């Protein structure tokens, strides 16, 4: 069967989806009596119009890159890891324990260990569902989503118990010391003479996210394990016939996926909050599914999709600010419409586009 060109697959189809999504959102905004063009303007200006807005956009995007990659890696082995939420939450414990265990002299020393802590905890949380899938055939969708709840309960137990800061009634740990403070965009760019908002939470975790994206690309398309993961995802039976162990692939893929989801806590817990709080993931694990879908499970697409979702999150908040008639729930509706069109209704656009390209090709030949 003819396939559409790569550029159309990666750019054209998502772009048409996006236009449709904005059109539908525009109708919603219109229905409550506001100007949709104003709304789009506020969202875009809010997300990109200032270094502060940009800082928040990229901060959120960092989260979505991590969780998007986590979902994508599992997708390639045809595993649907919807436990990114729980894996990221539990990884926060790893970060907190590592950072609070020592009086770190410098962040550059603390960061590698925090990454290990986050990765190990995230991977550990993915390991049990992976093991159950590989050895017992318990469906990974069910087990990973249940582990989200167990993760939330575990966090609650620890943050109300041994990790709790006795001076507050919020379920949160004590603040991390200054030695573990990750440089923010402001601190990195100021010596270079670039003024960047001081309050924006963007920090060097963004670079870590880009590094992870490159790493995932390398893993999937340049290593033997990546080949095995993709082969397993294409056809489990064929992969088995070729001597690929399904147990090994399922478990290794999920460990990588969980560790990637865990990197989110480097950005949020270590980079932003500088303390462990209860619900710091805030749905980023689930947004990661949409990001991976929209990015076609390719790291490059995921980075782009994550930027878009970062813009939506930050722009949505600005919209709330500028248009009091629009409530928090309305912003959610707009964001949901965009996810619906770009993720779930993907084939609605893809099929006509494929037909169109087929017709063009036939015409040419």
């Amino acid at each position, binding site marked *: 069967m003819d396939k559409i060109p790569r550029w159309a697959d990666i750019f054209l189809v998502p772009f048409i989806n996006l236009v449709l999504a904005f059109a539908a959102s525009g109708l919603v905004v219109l229905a409550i009596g506001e100007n949709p*063009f104003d709304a789009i303007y506020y969202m875009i200006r809010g997300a990109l119009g200032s270094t502060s807005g940009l800082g928040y956009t990229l901060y959120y995007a960092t989260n979505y890159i991590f969780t998007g990659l986590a979902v994508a890696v599992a997708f390639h082995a045809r595993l649907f890891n919807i436990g990114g939420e729980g894996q990221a939450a539990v990884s926060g414990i790893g970060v907190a324990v590592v950072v609070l265990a020592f009086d770190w002299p410098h962040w550059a020393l603390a960061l590698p260990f925090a990454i290990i802590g986050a990765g190990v905890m995230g991977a550990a949380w993915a390991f049990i569902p992976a093991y159950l899938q590989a050895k017992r055939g318990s469906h990974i969708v069910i087990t990973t989503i249940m582990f989200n709840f167990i993760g939330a309960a575990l966090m609650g137990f620890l943050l109300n118990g041994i990790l709790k800061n006795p001076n507050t009634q919020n379920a949160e740990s004590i603040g991390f010391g200054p030695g573990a403070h990750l440089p923010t965009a402001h601190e990195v760019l100021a010596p270079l003479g670039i003024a960047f908002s001081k309050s924006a939470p963007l920090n060097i975790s963004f670079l870590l996210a880009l590094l992870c994206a490159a790493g995932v690309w390398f893993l999937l398309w340049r290593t033997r394990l990546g080949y095995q993961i993709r082969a397993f995802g294409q056809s489990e039976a064929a992969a088995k016939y070729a001597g690929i162990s399904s147990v090994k692939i399922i478990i290794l893929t999920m460990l990588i996926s969980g560790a990637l989801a865990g990197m989110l806590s480097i950005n949020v817990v270590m980079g932003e909050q500088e303390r462990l709080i209860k619900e710091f993931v805030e749905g980023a694990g689930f947004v990661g599914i949409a990001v991976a879908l929209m990015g076609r499970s390719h790291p490059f697409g995921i980075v782009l999709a994550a930027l878009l979702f970062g813009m939506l999150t930050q722009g949505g908040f600005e919209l709330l600010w500028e248009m009091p008639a629009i409530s928090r729930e309305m912003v959610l509706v707009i964001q949901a419409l965009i996810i619906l069109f770009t993720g779930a209704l993907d084939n609605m656009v893809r099929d006509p586009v494929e037909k169109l390209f087929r017709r063009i090709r036939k015409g040419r030949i």
Partner: protein
Amino acid sequence: MSFTKAILGTASALAITATAALSDPAIIYDLGGKFDKSFNEAASKGADRWAKESGGKYREIELSSEAQREQALRRFAEDGANPVVMTGFAFASTLDTVAPDYPDTKFAIIDMVVDKPNVRSVVFSEHEGSYLVGVAAAMASKTGTVGFIGGMDVPLIRKFACGYVQGVKATNPDAKVIQNMTGTTPTAWNDPVKGAELTKAQIAQKADVVYAAAGGTGVGVLQAAADEGIYSIGVDSNQNYLHPGSVLTSMVKRVDVAVFDAFSQGADLTTGFHVLGLANGGVDYALDEYNAKIFTADIKAAVDAAKADIISGKIKVHDYMSDNNCPIE
């Protein structure tokens, strides 16, 4: 093109409106949302009442993520909003770092203490109000067993529970108090189904008055109590009207008064520690036409006596949060 025109038009309109809203008060609602039928909603009522009575305008925002706490605080402060009021203890750590950056802006935080020169910390004596409803519960109970259902298991809710137990035991030393917390995560504030289940479990253990200090979860508690024909006690807002004849009374916590006061004082907001207790009407029990029949004269006399004694200092109700400990269970 009409699209570019619309955008350009918007840009020019924006330049004009951007300078408005100087020194208006502002309020930030917590993640529960403005319309949570409880804490945040009470706060928004206070803000509305201020707007109506003073004719002034205020700005408000509902948060949808943790990262937005700092963002919202800074934006309001930078836009010149004064004072900036926030609802809930979860703001404490953020306010602690943000407040020193804006020494000319006054902040007010409800339900938590943040020790900064430009911050007013409003706390309520929930233990005193809970003591009163504890007295009422002990008086109304026939089985000698009463229940308490908390929302999220945090010291604040234990403070409610502890005050309640003290009130019950002071009235009937042999009474038994069954305590349950709905959960340990913020979702425990909004789980009416689990609230109803816990209520039924407590009824099975012979409880015939149940006090819900659980935000939205309490709706389920009150419903189950009404279904099973026992008494319940509401919290935060006056919830007597929800099930007339079943809701014995409500422990009202005047969050609206806290917001109204802060807004009224405007930029001259007095800072520091601010306690709203029985004496200044910050907490109280609720008596209206919906519970007049069941809230008998005997109960009222006992509760009012306790209230007078607490105000005069004759009864000291132990505050759980003062030492994270409750003298009696």
